[in-house]
C-alpha cells in the first residue's frame, strides 16, 4: 500500500470523511457512515424529500447528494409555527481510495437515503482459513 492510500484511510477513519459544504439555501442533512467488511454504507436523513428529486453523483473522488423537499403545506395554509428549515438538502463526501465507484447503489426509505459504496476487491476484508 502506498503512503497516499494510507493517508486516505486514516482520514477515512476519522470524521474528516464528511465534508460539510455550507451553502445557505441548503440544509446539511445528518449522516451516519458504517464500514462493513465489503462496503461503506452511508445513511442520510432526508425527511420529506421528493423521491424523484434525489441525486447521487460521483465525480473526481467526491460523492455529492442533493435532494429537494416536497411541499410541506397546501395552498391557503397559514403557517403559525415554523421549525422545518430549508427547501433543499445538499452534502458532499470525499471518497477514499479503494472504492468501486461504478457499483454504488442508493435506496430511499422512510425519509432515509442509504448509499452503499462497495470496496474494491483488494480493499475487502477476508479471512483465510488454514487448511
Amino acid at each position: 500500500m502506498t503512503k497516499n492510500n494510507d493517508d486516505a484511510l486514516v482520514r477515512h477513519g476519522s470524521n474528516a470523511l464528511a465534508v460539510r459544504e455550507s451553502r445557505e439555501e441548503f440544509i446539511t442533512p445528518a449522516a451516519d457512515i458504517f464500514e462493513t467488511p465489503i462496503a461503506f454504507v452511508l445513511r442520510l436523513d432526508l425527511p420529506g424529500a421528493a423521491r424523484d428529486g434525489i441525486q447521487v453523483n460521483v465525480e473526481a473522488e467526491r460523492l455529492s447528494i442533493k435532494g429537494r423537499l416536497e411541499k410541506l403545506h397546501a395552498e391557503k395554509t397559514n403557517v403559525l409555527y415554523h421549525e422545518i428549515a430549508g427547501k433543499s438538502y445538499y452534502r458532499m463526501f470525499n471518497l477514499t481510495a479503494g472504492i468501486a465507484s461504478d457499483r454504488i447503489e442508493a435506496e430511499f426509505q422512510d425519509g432515509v437515503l442509504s448509499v452503499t459504496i462497495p470496496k474494491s476487491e483488494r480493499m475487502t476484508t477476508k479471512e483465510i482459513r488454514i487448511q
Partner: protein
Amino acid sequence: MIVHFPQMSPVFDLDRTANEFFSNLSRRTHPVSDLPAVDVAEREHSYDLVVELPGMKKEDIRISVEKGTLVVRAERKQYGFPEGTKVLLHETNTRPFERVFQLPDAVDVNGISAEMKDGILRIQLPKTELARPREIKVQ
C-alpha cells in the same frame, strides 16, 4: 342577564388561538437539538402538525391526547448490521423523545388523524364546528 360563549373566543381572536397552540409548546425533556423539527399550520377546517421523523415507521410512533395536550412519543430503531461493522460517523439521533403540544379549545379531539410518509408525520386536528369559519347571509 349575561350569556358567555367561552368556546367562541378563539374564532374572534386568531392570535390568541395561535398562542394557545404554542404556549408551553413542549416540555423539553432533552436539549433542543434532540427534538425533531415541527411546523404548525392552520387551514380553514383544521390545524396541521408536521413533524420530521426520518427513519421511523408508524409502529415507532405513539400519539395521544392527555389532559388537553397532544403528546407525540417516538423512538428510532437502530440499524442492524453484520458483525464486524465499524461506525465511522454517527450524527443521527436515536434517543427516544417526547413532544407535548397544548391543544386549543377549538380542536375536535375525537377527529384527530395522523399519517406517516417518507419520514414526515402529519397530524390533522379538525376544528370544532364552532371554530370553523362560516358566512352568515343577511336575510
